[in-house]
């Protein structure tokens, strides 16, 4: 046997280096996030909890709102025409792989997912320092937003899956859709919960941030609308009357003020989406100034007025309607406070801009604020700006009230119903219904179209008409540009419910099967 000679110096170095570095601790492998929170520690203050719903007041709806919101409602309904981003809607040729379908779908279900997370976990995960009132209000907001999501989903896509627990769903996602009536019942339940638990608060008469937040009154207003969609007229009437009686909301006296950035979150707003050009991120601002606004009304972007008013909607406005100039612009209009082409004071001058309005002789004005001024606030790189957009405003509630009173009849002489209707007419500078003149269904329908033109509403009003009636209306609309002449497109019954996005149909073919009843908890 040969004797091995140990090198002492080398051994010492080995012991110091090798064994010195070789000791491992669990800490080495425990690497908590350095740039974000983990849910276990997050919900520890009132403000942290309150801020969990801020996204549902705007930003989370951005993929829906950008293009799709107007495309689905304004193009399909014949209020607008477009060369790009949606002629297939005008012609009822939309295919299920269009982003116009997947983006709203994703936005709505994103809100559902985050709402569910709050509803299911907030109570148990909130820290001791969070006040119970804040937890209660936040969970109620989550119910409210979940209801808003499903209200859009059911109107756009018909039967959809009702989801209450996304974590369970992630384990078994292949669900069926649920019946339309169950979705409405689900919405109702959520809104009732929200109405019972949200803060009750009377809107400030000064437009401003404190009016952003939804209240008991907001939930009740939507409840009235959802009752109306289900033809539960007495419930709708009762709920609308309750809101009217509360005095929380009122019409702004001047229609034009509704679309001033400085009047964001005024007391007519029941629920508005919040935008800011100052965020500087894509889909942070309200893009209407580009989607509707002419090039010369924009900063930094080189295409505008993609959606223009059809001749049909232009004709729907009565002479003398003050809403006309605030809804769409024609040659000769003047907007002294709007900046266009670098100059404050916009005159739609045919001499200066001879081919500006070639397509249908008009451009949308509603939600168009023009180039940046002190009034508008900043613009982002995509043309996004600071103005809010209404999801529901008090004028809607008034007309819901009138319709609920009418209760499916062709006319009504009810004074309260007529007064609600007349309030809207009065502000528009139009003739009110006389003492013995009844309010007719068609007048009310027409009023809704004009009052909410370009606000993303008309398609849903068409959708709750009997299909044959809606097809009759749509097929008579002129859906052509001036250069093409009058063009008509006739939808079929199924065109009033959009196809579900193909990407999810592929992932879950059951979405195409007949809907199943929902088992309510």
């Amino acid at each position, binding site marked *: 046997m040969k004797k091995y000679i140990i090198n002492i110096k080398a051994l010492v170095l080995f012991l110091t280096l090798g064994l010195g570095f070789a000791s491992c601790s669990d800490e080495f492998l425990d690497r908590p*996030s350095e740039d974000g929170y983990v849910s276990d520690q997050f919900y520890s203050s009132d403000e942290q909890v309150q801020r969990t719903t801020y996204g549902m007041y705007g930003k989370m709806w951005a993929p829906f709102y950008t293009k799709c919101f107007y495309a689905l409602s304004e193009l399909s309904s014949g209020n607008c025409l477009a060369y790009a981003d949606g002629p297939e809607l005008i012609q009822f040729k939309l295919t299920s792989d269009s982003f116009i379908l997947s983006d709203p779908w994703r936005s709505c279900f994103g809100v559902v997912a985050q709402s569910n997370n709050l509803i299911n976990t907030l109570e148990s995960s909130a820290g001791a320092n969070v006040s119970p009132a804040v937890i209660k209000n936040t969970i109620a907001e989550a119910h409210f937003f979940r209801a808003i999501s499903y209200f859009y989903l059911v109107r756009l896509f018909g039967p959809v899956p009702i989801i209450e627990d996304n974590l369970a769903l992630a384990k078994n996602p292949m669900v069926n859709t649920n019946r339309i009536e169950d979705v409405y019942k689900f919405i109702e339940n959520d809104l009732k919960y929200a109405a019972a638990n949200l803060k009750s608060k009377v809107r400030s008469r000064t437009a401003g941030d404190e009016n952003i937040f939804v209240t008991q009154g907001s939930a009740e207003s939507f409840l009235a609308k959802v009752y109306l969609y289900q033809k539960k007229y007495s419930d709708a009437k009762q709920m609308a009357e309750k809101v009217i009686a509360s005095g929380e909301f009122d019409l702004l006296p001047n229609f034009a003020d509704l679309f001033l950035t400085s009047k964001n979150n005024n007391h007519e707003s029941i629920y508005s989406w919040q935008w800011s050009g100052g965020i500087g991120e894509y889909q942070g601002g309200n893009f209407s100034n580009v989607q509707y606004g002419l090039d010369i009304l924009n900063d930094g972007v080189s295409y505008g007025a993609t959606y223009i008013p059809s001749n049909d909607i232009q004709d729907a406005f009565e002479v003398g309607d003050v809403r006309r100039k605030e809804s769409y612009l024609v040659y000769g209009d003047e907007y002294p406070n709007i900046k266009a082409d670098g100059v404050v004071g916009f005159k739609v001058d045919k001499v200066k801009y001879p081919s500006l309005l070639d397509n249908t002789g008009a451009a949308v004005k509603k939600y168009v604020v023009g180039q940046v001024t002190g009034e508008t606030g900043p613009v982002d790189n995509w043309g996004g700006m600071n103005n809010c957009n209404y999801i529901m405003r008090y004028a809607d509630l008034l007309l819901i009230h009138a319709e609920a009173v009418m209760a499916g009849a062709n006319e009504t002489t009810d004074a309260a119903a007529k007064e609600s209707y007349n309030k809207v007419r009065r502000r528009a500078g139009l003739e009110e219904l006389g003492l013995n003149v009844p309010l007719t269904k068609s007048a009310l329908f027409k009023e809704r179209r004009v009052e909410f033109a370009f606000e993303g509403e008309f398609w849903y009003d068409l959708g709750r008409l009997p299909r044959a009636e809606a097809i009759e209306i749509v097929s008579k609309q002129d859906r052509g540009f001036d250069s093409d002449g009058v063009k008509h497109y006739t939808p079929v019954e199924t065109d009033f419910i959009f196809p579900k996005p193909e990407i999810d149909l592929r992932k879950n073919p059951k979405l195409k099967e007949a809907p199943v009843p929902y088992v309510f908890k």
Partner: protein
Amino acid sequence: MKKLMTNFIHWNANHRAIPLILFLLLTSNFITAQVKVSGIVSDDKGLSIPGANISVVGSKMSSSTDFDGKYTIDVPANSSISVSFIGYVTQTLNVKNGGTINVVLKLSAEDLREVLVNVGYRSQKRKDVTGAISSVTAKDFADSPQISMDQMLQGRAAGVQVTNNSGQPGASASVRIRGISSLSGTNEPLYIIDGIPVSGDATNQATGGNIVSGYLGANTGNVSTSPLSLINPNDIETYDILKDASATAIYGSRAANGVIIVTTKRGKKGTGKFAYDSFLSIQNVTSLLDTMSLSQYAVQQNALAEYYGVGPRDEFAVPSVLGAGTNWQDEIYKTAIMENHQLSFSGSKDGTSYYISGGYADQQGIVVGSAFKRYTFKTNVDSKVKNWLSVGVSIGAGITNEDITINGSSNGIISTSILSTPDVAVRNLDGSYAGPPEDASLGVWINPVASALMNTNNLIKKNFSGNFYSIFKLAKGLEYRFDFGGSTDISNFEGFQPTYAWGSAVRDINQLQERSNTSYNLNIKNVLTYKFSTGVHNFNFLAGQEAYDSHWFGNSQSVSGLLSNDVHSINLGDQDTLVASEYKGSSGLYSFFGTFNYDFNSRYTLQATMRADGSSNFGPGKRWGYFPSIAGTWNLSNEKFMKSTKEYIDNIKFRIGYGETGNQNIGGGAYLSNIRSIKSAMGNFFTADNIANPDLTWETGEQTNLGLEFTMFNSKLSANFDVYRKQTAGFLFTLPLPYYVTGLESYQGGLGAPRVNLGSLRNQGFEMALGYDNKFSNNFSWTSKVTFFMNRNELLSLQDNFDLTKDVMLNDYTNKAVTKTVVGQPIGQFYGYETVGIIRTNEQLANAPIPFTGNKAVKSQLGDVEYVDQNKDGLIDEKDLTFIGSPQPKFNYGFNNTFKYKNIDLGVMLQGSYGNKVMNLTRRAGTKNQRLYENQLAEAVDFWTPENTDAKYPRPDGADGHPNIAISDRYVEDGSYLRIQQVTLGYGLPSDILSKAGLSKLRFYLGVQNLYTFTKYTGYDPEVGSYNQDELLSGIDSGRYPTNRSFTFGMNIEF
């Protein structure tokens, strides 16, 4: 005496040597019967060998050659001298009366096999290797004018498939060792470069997935740049590619995609050497697509306008007089120059060897506005400090500066150059950039030349890395090695979009975006090795521990409204528009490993390894993974009964191996339920970021390998065959939940799907490398290497059979699914409709299934595309989507040849791929005929009208969503190709001339890279690669930056 003087002159730098020589010269006269012998020792290529040993047999007298290979020695008359040098066969020559004896040493075949292979934490002799390991050495890829070290492997190693994802200088390549083992972000191998681990993942999955040069999104283009482009390939000596798991298991959790160990050059024995390598390349695009000229475009626009019922444009009234107009491809491609210089010094003296180099590369892109510059520095020093202690250090630095043109997306420069209209000039008469006309209400194609040249996308990367080691001999056979290495990366990106007015494309507000990322990692290794031998039994043990600690930090700022476009600084923008964000994080990996080797009489060997890794990417209880392997070899030729065959077969070895490896290459924290902060008009809000998965753990791979290798006819012929089966279980993937579960993307406020161990997949294949190396005469030799590789993969299982489809953006906003992966099928197959053809007759129309792609069935018309009704329900809907081709090749091959005749060498390398399909979305965009104000390929003119019923393309339709342009087999093409990748003709000056000039090497060469490609593919280049290294988006050509053809002139000087 004249000779003596030459020596004097030659050695004039070495003054101390002169007295010694004089002494020797003088003393030699006093010794009787001594004769003087001198001459030159060279190799069989005629290159002189410095440092060769010349000794007198049977005496202690010896001498060595100088750096010109010359020697002089005094020897007794009638004795013999022995001339030897490492790696060469020793020659013994008889000396009678002295005089000049020139010696040509032959390379030793035996010693060639003694080449050391780095098998991970240690080296083995090639003959002792048990696993499937390919090596590629510097001489294999010399003369390739390529920027990135991963590209050098293309076609040079069996089992390694390299595809260039883009022809942009500095762009990432996809390197696949034995196919695809994971479906998540990266399938790139782990690189160990001088002991420092570097991930080949260009998307930085392991460090949070942030890419400084852009964002990963559906239409962001190929923004990933190669993490390996910071390394100068000229510094590389060897790549040892560890392919099977018995070889890679020692790297455990990071080895699932294979391991490439890169060893840079080190100083060699002998006198100091100086080398200068340089080349200049002229690069060009290989082909252009045939787009419409102005008159063709006018005809087409008139026809489409008529079809859509829109009035024709006045200026197109008489198309024939309009001429060619602007060909935007001509405008965006240019002849580009590339130059490369490298200086290196190396040598070894008194137990210390060194290698020092500096390199500079400057490559212009063939697309305007793209360029790449690189500066590299490398130092390797190894020294024997004491007889029990040796130390060494490798230090490298690299700086790159890239101008990127965004491509590979529908709105990239390449795609735009096809669709931009020929009626728009590049520039106006006043020299400013032109743009589309005011009334182009539909297609506002932003001038691609202006966009490439005026937008800034500049990326500067810096890498500094060092690794230090010391080896202590503790006792006989027992060694302890300590390694400490670190690396830091700094990347800065500047993106600037200026204000402009190019026709109706106007931008009033400029924007500056700056992003930066810094990261560092530290790596400590302690390795003990022990070997002992009892004659026929040889044992080798290794035990080690390693810790890897990585930290990263990145931020970005953007600002708009700079007062001018000239100076780009965040300070100069409108501060109200300032947007900033940051990210940071760290990860750790802690490991133990060991191997045991046993060799019986050079006939049987057995090797077992084990590695345990703890990773911070997983939650408590799921952190530790264990990766064992076992392999054995049988060296048949060393058996006694094979003695008689030795004449023909020198070496036959059978190898068998099994091993397990892992993949943990995801960001940290996926096991936790995280909260995300998002900006909104109301300030930050917070959402649940993801569905947590506390069970998340390693992806594990099992691989079995059978190998056979032999050399024949005195090593002239060598062959290497391997078959393998590689099975990945629990591959890491973000659960592809439907949108109704997750809603939005998490950055938009959605609830991110959990990271899961989703399923299993299998790769099996065969690879072969054949070598032939023969010298036909003193003047002519041929060396050849054929590599062949076939791999089949199949998805074996998938949790709950989730739908694995993958979308690409077809224009700014339309996503379409293009691939789908299902159980029992290969990965990432194209997915769409099968077509019957165009409906040309009423009878065909009556029988055609009806498209139901919206919310109702819409009958086809004459001239529409008829799709195959797969489920025979009379409708065409998403149920009729099917597999329409696979991007994966049936096999890949490479064929490398070097011919030498006297001083001339000729290298020819062919490389190809067979049986893969490419989805040509560029052609789809160029033939869709859906829009006015958009150019098309010239062939698009042949569309169906009642007058042109035999047309190649269907009737045009104004809606973007019309089923005529649905993703279908109409856009799937054969992507097989055979490419003459490289042809190099070199001439080395003969050594007698060189020695007069004091040089040891002077070689010039001319090379052509990408000379010609044989293919049926109609796009620019069938080598498409994958989109940002995403395996599920392979073979999709959406305006990929084409690979250039280059002509290179280069030279190598050594002295």
